């Protein structure tokens, strides 16, 4: 975990002071609504349906127990006792008062946290794999790179007023759990034949109104050039990205218009000037940052297979939980545990202040005082001893975190939707709940197997519906809420965008629609085929026919 030095700390304290004055001037009428808007957005502050929403940055999803307790305190003192894990690993509060925001930021600064650039047309929080540093399939730990990029993005003077928002994700594993191909920039550390470290660089991915899988424009960028190359990409985008139409302003539109090849040439032309400059990264800086991400004090342990198998026999619930919520770890005797924030009846990603305190406590006792958030809106304890899994499971059950559904149909990615968000066309949380209720039989859920079901309440796509194996999009039809279904999306390596099934459905039809889709899958699948595999083999038509057939 990166620990601030006096410079990092001073920067966020300066920000608190700056935003306190900006808020004061706004409330005193010295700053107009229009002048204040980008300033508050770049501090993660939206004006929502009922109150402002404050999005607090969780850089690449890493939190300490101390920071988590601060989240709990803010939920308690300034909100209605809960917080929400967002689809970009951040934490959102839905009820703070505008007047209180400077005080909240001051409290956050005491635990090295902030809300800098969590919204607005600027460089946003960098995201990564929630299993970074512990995944068995990891090639390079992406976290030092995330932190280096985070510092580069923070108050970058040239790129604070971009045409549109800008999201960077970094993945360091064989599997891509960071969905880098649907980001404005996706980075993947790799080694070349000589064993040197560099990056594969993708640009122009994104969801939203015009979903696009990005294009790799550089297969090996020497790591020393990383920040210069980001400067070059952002400079090209800042100068030539469209500003006349906010729906065509993301970098993906520019990359498409120019073609990835021409875009890459423009970046290279810029690099000709920037390469070798002062922004070239140094061994010393890489070392300084990387030393914050060395392994914790792992014990020399053996895997606990036999004992766990016995526990599985004795406790079928434990066995089920282990199948879904516990992952292999790079160290023998350890495991990474996902706490499900998706029990039926709770808005996906929501946690109460008491639960946050409980998570902090569990992190202290089971996982070196650290935890992570995932873009699937769950929480991870990354370094749990296998011999402690049963004890942990018992505690997770008491706190409502043990729903064994990670990666299954009910582990729904879902934006806050029309219940909270002023952009939404339709509610999303009640749709998620009605589907979870329909699939409440655990045996059946397990039988269906891995399935990404993602719901967005509008085409801004915060719920990542385009990359759900099943995607659901809320649409407004003459003032009524309807839901469009798409199939075949995927955010993993070789990402794909879902294809729309057909005309949209009323809210109360949705559980039936999903059930019919699942029926088709169950009937047609071959052994070991996941929903997405069957879909890719048989295509959309059998699903379409079933769902839209007359009289059923």
């Amino acid at each position, binding site marked *: 975990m990166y620990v601030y*030095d006096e*410079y990092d700390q*001073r*920067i966020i304290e*300066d*920000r608190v002071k*700056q935003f306190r004055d*900006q808020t004061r001037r706004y409330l005193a009428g010295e*700053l107009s609504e229009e*002048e204040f808007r*980008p*300033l508050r957005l770049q501090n993660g502050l939206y004006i929502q349906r009922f109150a402002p929403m404050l999005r607090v940055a969780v850089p690449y999803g890493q939190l300490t127990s101390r920071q988590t307790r601060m989240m709990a305190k803010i939920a308690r003192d300034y909100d209605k006792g809960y917080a929400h894990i967002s689809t970009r690993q951040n934490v959102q509060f839905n009820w703070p008062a505008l007047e209180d925001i400077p005080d909240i930021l001051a409290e956050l600064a005491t635990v090295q946290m902030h809300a800098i650039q969590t919204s607005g*047309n600027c460089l946003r929080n960098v995201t990564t794999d929630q299993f970074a540093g512990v995944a068995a399939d990891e090639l390079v730990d992406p976290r030092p790179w995330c932190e280096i990029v985070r*510092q*580069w993005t*923070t*108050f*970058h*003077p*040239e*790129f*604070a*007023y*971009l*045409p549109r928002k800008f999201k960077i994700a970094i993945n360091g594993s064989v599997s891509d759990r960071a969905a880098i191909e649907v980001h404005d920039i996706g980075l993947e550390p790799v080694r070349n034949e000589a064993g040197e470290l560099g990056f594969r660089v993708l640009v122009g991915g994104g969801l939203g109104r015009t979903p696009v899988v990005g294009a790799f424009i550089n297969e090996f960028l020497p790591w020393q050039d990383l*920040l210069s190359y980001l400067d070059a990409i952002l*400079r090209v985008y*800042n*100068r030539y990205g469209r*500003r006349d139409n906010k729906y065509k302003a993301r970098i993906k539109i520019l990359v498409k218009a120019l073609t990835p090849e021409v875009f890459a040439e423009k970046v290279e032309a810029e690099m000709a*000037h920037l390469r070798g*400059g*002062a*922004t070239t*990264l*140094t061994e*010393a*800086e890489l070392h*300084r940052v990387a030393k914050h991400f060395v392994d914790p004090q792992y014990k020399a342990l053996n895997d606990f297979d036999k004992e766990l198998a016995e526990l599985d026999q004795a406790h079928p619930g434990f066995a089920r939980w282990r199948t879904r919520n516990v992952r292999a770890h790079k160290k023998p005797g350890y495991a990474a545990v996902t706490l499900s924030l998706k029990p039926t009846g709770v808005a996906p990603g929501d946690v109460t202040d008491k639960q946050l305190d409980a998570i902090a406590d569990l992190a202290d006792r089971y996982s070196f005082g650290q935890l992570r958030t995932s873009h699937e809106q769950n929480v991870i304890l990354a370094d749990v001893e296998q011999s402690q899994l049963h004890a942990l499971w018992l505690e997770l059950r008491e706190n409502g975190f043990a729903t064994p559904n990670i990666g299954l149909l009910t582990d729904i990615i879902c934006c806050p939707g029309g219940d909270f968000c002023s952009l939404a066309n339709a509610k999303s949380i009640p749709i998620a709940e009605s589907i979870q209720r329909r699939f409440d039989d655990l045996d059946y859920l397990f039988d269906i197997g891995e399935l990404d079901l993602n719901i967005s309440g509008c085409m801004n796509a915060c719920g990542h519906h385009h990359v759900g194996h099943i995607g659901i999009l809320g649409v407004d039809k003459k003032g009524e809420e309807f839901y469009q279904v798409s199939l075949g999306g995927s955010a993993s390596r070789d990402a794909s965008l879902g294809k729309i099934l057909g005309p949209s459905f009323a809210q109360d039809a949705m559980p039936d629609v999903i059930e019919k889709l699942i029926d088709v899958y169950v009937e047609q699948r071959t052994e070991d085929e996941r929903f997405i595999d069957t879909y890719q083999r048989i295509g959309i038509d059998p699903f379409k026919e079933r769902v839209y057939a007359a009289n059923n």
Partner: protein
Amino acid sequence: MQRIIKNNEIVDETWHLLPKDFNIDELTNCDDYIVPLQLWRDHSRMLKARDGGLGVWLDADEEAEEIGEDANEFQVIALNFPAFTDGRNYSNARLLRDRYGFKGELRAIGDVLRDQLFYLHRCGFDAFAIRPDKDPYEALESLKDFSVTYQAATDEPLPLFRRR
């Protein structure tokens, strides 16, 4: 008379900022002008021959490369912000300073507000024509918003990682 922030002080404006449709025949010999880019393109020889000061201004959709190596022909280069949220001229500023070595006054004009001043200054602006309805003395305060910065920029050629 408009007041300008220049090198951290408030000074009276002495330059005439000419609109894009300005008629060249109305130019006097001795006044100081900041001319639109097109006027410079069409009449550079004549403009250089005058006795008065010469500046040029670029709109947000015009490119630093169009001035390029000629940058130091001007005492002032002004970059226009049609809206304070239009960030293109931050990049133009850096190109003029860092790539073309412009040493003169680099001035922000248009929708220039105090809360952008710190970033503008980092990108090489040293003069700011604050929007007339705002107080330039208050705006001066914002140049002190941050005491540490991470990135290399025009005001600080080394990134923090080479200084910490």
